[in-house]
């Protein structure tokens, strides 16, 4: 009798433990980011790149290197994005055309796919500034952020035994802190880059393309693309020919994935599924008890 009592208590504790799991897990969604926060993006920090004004001097990439303590590289030849370079200037025009340059770096999406993808919350969006940055202290180097990024701008130091995710963070620890502006914008001599709040940048971009409709394509890239970005572009050439992703649409790639994953929200479905599995398993398990030696 005593034996069976202790046995029952043990079993009760065990069941309690199992029941507790979903309750603990159900608190977790609250810790995730809320999409609603991101709609208020007027005050986010960003910059506007006006392709028609860029002369391709690469002062921006050079300044980025110096300020962010990146390994030295030659700036005479164009260098593409790599673990040694957080930003680059690409020549995107064809032969016999006037040169058209486009700056590439993290777009600082309003609803970043990389942040949604990161399993350990190492990739984060700063709620105040909208800056997307990676925290190496928690990053496990799984590189799912790179798979998720539609702009393919996230880099990784492949050659290092202690590698890092490398991307533009708008100089948040360096030039932005010291001088209140990203280094690339700080040094731009041609006025192709301007820095400021997203709301003001959008107004300026819209003013420019309306004032000179012949010079500009009537679109501000990043206003809505991929859910909107803090880095905005205007240009005299259509954007698909400027190495921007095709079929991105106006929705962040994170939205579809997260709506599929919402099946797991609050952990209700898996718990229900477990109970639904447990009932027949336990019935059939007992039924076959002693059938043959090789159970399981």
């Amino acid at each position, binding site marked *: 009798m005593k034996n069976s009592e202790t046995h029952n208590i043990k*079993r009760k504790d065990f069941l309690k433990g199992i029941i507790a799991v979903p309750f*603990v897990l159900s608190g*977790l*969604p609250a*810790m*995730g*980011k809320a999409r609603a926060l991101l709609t208020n993006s007027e005050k986010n920090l960003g910059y506007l790149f006006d392709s028609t004004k860029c002369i391709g001097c690469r002062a921006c990439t050079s300044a980025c290197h110096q300020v962010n303590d990146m390994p030295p590289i030659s700036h005479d030849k164009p260098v593409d*994005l790599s673990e040694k370079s957080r930003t680059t200037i690409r020549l995107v025009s064809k032969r016999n055309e006037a040169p058209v340059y486009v700056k590439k770096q993290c777009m600082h999406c309003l609803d970043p*796919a990389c942040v*949604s*993808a*990161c*399993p*350990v*919350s*190492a990739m984060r969006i700063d709620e105040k500034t909208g800056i997307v940055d990676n925290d*190496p202290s*928690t990053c*496990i180097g*799984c*590189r*799912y952020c*790179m*798979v*998720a990024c*539609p702009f*393919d701008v996230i*880099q*990784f*130091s*492949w*050659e*290092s*035994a202690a*590698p890092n995710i490398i991307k533009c963070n708008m100089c948040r620890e360096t030039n932005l802190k010291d001088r209140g502006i990203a280094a690339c914008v700080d040094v731009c001599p041609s006025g192709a880059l301007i820095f400021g709040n997203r709301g003001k940048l959008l107004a300026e971009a819209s003013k420019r393309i309306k004032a000179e409709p012949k010079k500009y394509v009537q679109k501000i890239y990043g206003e809505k693309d991929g859910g909107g970005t803090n880095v905005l572009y205007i240009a005299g050439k259509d954007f698909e020919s400027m190495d921007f*992703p095709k079929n*991105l649409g106006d929705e962040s*790639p994170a939205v*579809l*994935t*997260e709506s*599929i*994953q919402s099946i*797991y929200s609050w952990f209700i479905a898996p718990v229900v*599924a*477990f109970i639904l*599995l447990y009932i*027949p*398993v336990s019935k*059939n*398990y007992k039924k*076959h*008890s*002693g*059938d*043959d*030696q*090789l*159970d*399981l």
Partner: protein
Amino acid sequence: MKKIQESISQQPSFIKFALLFVTLGIILFLFRFFMGLGVTNMSAGYPWGIWIVIDVVVGTAIGTGGFVMAILVYIFNKGEYHPLVRSAILTSAFGYTIAGISVIVDLGRWWNFFSLMFPWRWNVHSVLLEVALCVMAYVIVLWIEFSPAFHEKGGESGVMSIGFIRKLVNKVNEKKRGANKILIVVVSLGILLPLMHQSSLGTVMVIAKTKLHPLWHTPFLPLLFLISIGFMGFCMVAIESLYSSMYLNRKYDVGILTKLSTIIAITGLAWIVLRFAVLAGEGKTGLIASSGSMSAYFMLEIATAIIGTLLMFAVKTLKSPRIIFISSLFLVFSAALYRINTYIVGYNPGSGYSYTPSLVETLGTFALISAEFLLYLLFIRTFPVVQEDKH
């Protein structure tokens, strides 16, 4: 040492080859930890190579025999398939354990791996988090599911010489079956966890919508991944049952395997129908023929699925273990190719990036497959896994 040398020299040559690969692999993996992931051909455009796609995505899919057999036996109450369960669980246990090892080798910042264990660092929106946690939990579940074999074998040699493992094995198996609540919970989890992460391995690529070719990108990826597990898991069970019967000089389980072949053929057919239905529903049927080399990969994937499925339907009349084996190979190839296509072949980041696995990556993958194979053979010889022929 001499004893080990002698026992190796007595082994057949394919085992010696496999041992060579494993040794080479261990050296290469150590090399990778000192040199960084530059020894691979991965790039910013292709951040995932075969160590993720073949070792983990395909490797765990191949290890779903335990999952599908558990569904058949414990949910649909088909007790006659019982003799196949334990060897299926063993393959699954090795498949998943080896996938776990591959993940550690592939993780750039592996020393931060424990981030995954801290709930306050979890990003609950991340598909990869769910996959990682489910896979970790499932590795433990699989070894507990296999523990009755350790328990029956008993003794204090091998893994049972490790004190806490012996205690754990004895604790889990002290109660008779039927009264053993621990095992019932574990078996239920052993169905729930693969159901979650094998579908989510499809969801993982949904986010790459601008890079993944439309022949593969669809919100139905999780469902397609899950259904293809149906035939892939059962085919692996058939292959390993036939192979271990041959290896241990026992009679083939032709009766059970013929019954199994009908289930395989139906899931295969279901997958093919769904694959085309999704393409038609999304208005992508035109792409099947017009996508150049992508069309060729798609055709190969579908053709092998169709051939395998038709052969499986023929098994019922032919009752030939050879046909079961060949059609299983076709279907496993098809489902593996579907995963490789979704993760690498159909994945195009543009900007002139390309990916072909490096020698280190290829040898590393061979080493892990060889290790899995060797350990499987060792285990079926050491533990009561394959049932003695009663028929």
